[in-house]
């Protein structure tokens, strides 16, 4: 565990949490005027990586299974300083992010996919918690809640104060709307045109007030986006930063690239949904470890490096990352547990408050479900007037 030794050394010489390792020490990271850091007081955003099918607790609660289940051993785990023992795949993240990982239980008490998803996202209510959070966070973004590359999760639906889910299937149109283009329609004229299109649509909206809610919100959002002064940020450079060629959002790499684009454009909450995590029979956890290492972690490393470590945009940010799924996987056959041990990574995360599951993937009966989880996200993003009440996990927020 050479990395532990290096970390210990850095800590010993006074390079505290939040400083990055390696080249950053001699790089522009020491020029505070040139870049903004990720801090708990910055402009908040939440990226939710939703693993459709399930999210094995071996990642966030590895100690629960040490040498007993899911192939967890000392050799494939890593210790977050003062926090949980996690899967070693997380150890590949930049140190600033690794040091702010913790684990929270979402105890939705459901072992079917639909029930688990609803429990985590809405508890059966008409408006998903993520939409409520995105709406309450405010800010100047015109698209406040986005999914990147599509995908559906039960309970992730509804509208609140004009905030609804906007899916980004291709980044080209979004960049055009944000920046303008010499050959396409002029942004200001297009805004006026969309206003007139909306006026022509009044009859349809009156006839289908529920069915066309998203379209109605769409007109408002487009107008707001087009009338906003184009920001100088080079949005077109985001996708190539992840090695993505073209603008289609059709794999997880491009989803995380699009998530960065949307957060820089002002989105409060972004969902990147990945499939293939209903891993029945994955008794030694090798399948999920492989997917995590090959598909999820590589773009996340880039994301954290760009948003946390070397953010060249002069905006202080507080970007939080959540990894969650329908539920954790149960023992012995990696089937369906009755809650989800989610991973949270954020500047305001108090890692010592981590919540382990039992060695049989059991959940604390006193822990809340989705609403309580989102009350924590409200606290991490310092959202005033969050609609979820007081933070149900005070031990996890600074």
């Amino acid at each position, binding site marked *: 565990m050479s990395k532990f030794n290096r970390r210990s050394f850095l800590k010993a010489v006074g390079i505290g949490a939040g400083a990055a390792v390696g080249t950053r020490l001699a790089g522009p990271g020491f020029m505070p005027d040139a870049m903004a850091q990720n801090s708990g007081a910055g402009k908040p955003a939440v990226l939710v990586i939703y693993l459709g099918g399930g999210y094995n607790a071996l990642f966030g609660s590895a100690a629960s299974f040490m040498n007993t289940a899911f192939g967890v051993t000392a050799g494939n785990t890593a210790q977050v300083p003062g926090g949980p023992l996690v899967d070693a795949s997380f150890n590949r993240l930049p140190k600033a992010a690794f040091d702010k990982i913790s684990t929270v239980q979402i105890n939705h008490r459901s072992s079917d996919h639909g029930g688990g998803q609803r429990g985590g996202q809405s508890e059966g209510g008409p408006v998903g918690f993520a939409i409520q959070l995105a709406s309450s966070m405010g800010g100047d973004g015109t698209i406040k809640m986005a999914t990147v590359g599509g995908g559906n999760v039960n309970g992730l639906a509804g509208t609140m104060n004009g905030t609804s889910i906007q899916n980004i*299937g*291709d980044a080209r*149109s979004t960049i055009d709307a944000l920046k*303008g283009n010499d050959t396409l*329609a002029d942004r200001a004229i297009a805004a006026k045109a969309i206003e007139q*299109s909306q006026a022509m649509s009044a009859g*349809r909206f009156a006839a289908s007030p529920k069915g*066309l809610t998203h379209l109605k919100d769409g007109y408002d959002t487009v107008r707001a986006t087009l009338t906003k002064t184009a920001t100088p940020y080079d949005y077109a450079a985001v996708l190539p930063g992840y090695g993505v060629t073209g603008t289609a959002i059709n794999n997880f790499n491009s989803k995380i690239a699009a998530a960065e684009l949307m957060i820089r454009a002002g989105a409060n909450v972004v969902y990147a949904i990945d499939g293939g995590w209903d891993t029945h029979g994955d008794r030694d956890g090798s399948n999920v470890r492989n997917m995590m290492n090959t598909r999820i972690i590589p773009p996340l490393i880039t994301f954290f490096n760009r948003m946390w470590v070397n953010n060249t945009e002069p905006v202080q940010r507080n970007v939080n990352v959540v990894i969650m799924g329908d539920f954790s996987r149960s023992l012995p056959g990696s089937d369906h547990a009755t809650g989800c041990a989610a991973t949270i990574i954020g500047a305001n995360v108090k890692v010592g408050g981590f919540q382990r599951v039992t060695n049989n993937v059991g959940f604390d009966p006193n822990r809340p479900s989705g609403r309580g989880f989102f009350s924590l996200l409200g606290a991490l993003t310092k959202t005033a007037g969050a609609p979820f009440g007081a933070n149900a996990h005070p031990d996890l927020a600074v």
Partner: protein
Amino acid sequence: MKNVILSTSVVLFGLLTLTACSGDGGSLTGDPDPNGPGGSLIPGLPGAEAPPPEKVCFDQQQGYVGLGGIALHSSRAEALPGVDRDRFKPFSSLSGEFRRALGTPNAPNLQNSAATFGDAPPRFFAEPKATAVNLFEAYQVAFRLCEATNTTGSFASAPTEAAARTECASWERKAWSRTPTPADIDSCVKIAVTDSITENPPSGQRQTTPVRRWAYACATVYASAGFLTY
């Protein structure tokens, strides 16, 4: 003789069938013109005739009582008939609709826009969902098609109020399959005559060409819910 009996039986069966299916076609909807402006099925809206009785499904459906006296129909969703029937067109039909309405069967392939609209892969179905992004894409697609299509004749000159009224009415009729209201025409004319005179792209302000002014107005029509929904 057998043929006569057989023929008579067929005719009688046909008459009975017609009788069973006869009646006022509008009685199901309350409106003979489902494409009427403002969705005239809805009481109180322009175009509505006599207000239909405010019956919800519960008033008209069969109820079922299950074990323990529980009403099995109690959790059915309630709504007024005729309300909330509009849906966003899927991209697979929308791309063809652009060509039909604009009269450009050989228009450029719109497949580049499929991902933005969330087009489902072959043999899969996903209910299309309108968003700000695909709405803006719809406007951009319409603008490009209008710019490429409307280049000669009256489109070669800057739009006048009279010319714009004619063209806007024509576009709206084709796009919506109904006669537009004066207000609908005014909305389109405003873009052509007033709002599109100068452009301000990243390279700097410039005078808008006549073809692009017409395209702005034309795309306004094709970005309306009357075209994007059904």
